[in-house]
């Protein structure tokens, strides 16, 4: 068995796919196939599925165009992709906050079913969701990014640091600030606390 055959039998990690894509661009499709669903889901939770269609596609186009600068010591591309998506989401900050405030004010969430017919598929949000929306809307963009990358993206603190290109200490301080504000919005409750 040649080394090439052996290599093909073992599923390549993301860094290896990206390295191969330097010479064979089509290899990058493997990265797309692995992550498109979760990147789209993350964006959809923040901005709705229609915006997610566009932004998720852009995320992978930008990733592809920047693959030469990818740090191949990071075996998983997930934080990198979430970072690109987060930068794109930032351009829609006003929309995100508008949607959250709308949910808080009316009890009707424009997301995650923003495309449903007005009379169908919309369920009045529970009071807790309205309070959550208010708390999230009140956060700064940077604090919200960190909180949601952890809560919705399931990124570790280290991965958030990689995704946003910031020191891990900054991740901790932003998360601390986000939790503090969320607690304040919820009174005595802590919506960021882990269930026992």
């Amino acid at each position: 068995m040649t080394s090439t055959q052996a290599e093909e039998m073992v599923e390549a990690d993301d860094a290896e796919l990206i390295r191969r894509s330097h010479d064979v661009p089509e290899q990058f499709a493997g990265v797309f196939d692995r992550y498109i669903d979760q990147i789209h889901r993350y964006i959809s939770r923040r901005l709705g599925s229609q915006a997610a269609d566009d932004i998720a596609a852009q995320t992978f186009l930008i990733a592809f165009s920047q693959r030469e600068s990818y740090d191949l010591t990071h075996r998983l591309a997930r934080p990198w992709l979430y970072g690109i998506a987060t930068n794109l989401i930032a351009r829609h900050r006003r929309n995100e906050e508008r949607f959250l405030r709308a949910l808080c004010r009316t009890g009707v969430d424009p997301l995650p079913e923003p495309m449903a017919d007005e009379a169908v598929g919309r369920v009045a949000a529970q009071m807790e969701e309205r309070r959550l929306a208010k708390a999230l809307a009140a956060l700064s963009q940077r604090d919200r990014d960190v909180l949601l990358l952890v809560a919705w993206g399931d990124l570790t603190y280290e991965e958030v640091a990689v995704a946003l290109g910031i020191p891990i200490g900054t991740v901790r301080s932003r998360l601390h600030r986000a939790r503090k504000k969320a607690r304040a919005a919820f009174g005595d409750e802590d919506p960021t606390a882990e269930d026992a």
Partner: protein
Amino acid sequence: MDKIRKFRDNPPLITDEARDAARAQLLHAMREPALTVRRQRRPRLAWRLVLATSLAVATVVGFTVTRDADQPVIVPIANVGELGERAARAAETDPDAIVLSPGKWLYTKETIAPLLKEPRPEVDMEQRITLERWNSADGKQTALDDGTGRLVHHETGPGITATDLAEAPVTPEEMLTRMRAALSGKPVTPAADESDGTMEERLFQTIHQLMSGQPLVPEVRAALFRALPMIKGVSVKQDAVDATGRHGNAFVYTGAWQRSEIIISPEDYRFLGTYGETVTDRTFFSERVGTVKAGTPTVWTAYLESQVVDRPGDRP
């Protein structure tokens, strides 16, 4: 953290159509190695004149887009098909629709963000200038003020005119067939290199140009709105902004190099304007252009007014 984790925990899954469209865009980008070595794109005549105009008469003004309190609420649109249908119905029943008689001209007035520094394609998002154009009824001629009061005529159109499209039958499928036929015989030259690529992108750009300049009868305008969702890769954007700060819904096409938006009023679904920006870095042969980074705005317009006039140079 669990409360937040459960919040909006069940968003709609990505559709097969959206995944396929995104994958197709990516594969297209992979197959475009020439992207980094393309020849410099010549700005269109209109844009060059606009730049000349802005320098000659100093009509450039500082501009900051802000959201007014009286902006219409943007109703979420279910999908691009719904946006196409709503816009088409509005076009069909528009009481103010303009129909040109032979020999008449269509005067249009737009506000646009001017080029930042020719020959680079980047527009200056902080500046606005007014662009007035006169389009002949047959859609074949456009006249522009060169900034000194002198009109410059040139042939216009994306290879197909409003007259060509108005011949029966006027259906979305027929519009696409005619545009494809026109584009198939039209090589992608540097001057016509708006789309850089796929037929889908060229179709989108063609409708983009038709909407902003051609004297379209209501049936054709409606058919074009219905044709947009039939172009593979076209999606909807819920909140787009034109060059005057008006918010609307937009048809969007993301190509290998740039993303283009056709912005529609959320109130009456009339055409508001356009926006375009690059989505990947691109290096041009010309050192004067150099590298254009992803995220660079390349077009931003707002359609202000259109009226029938007797001859080019006349104003309503």
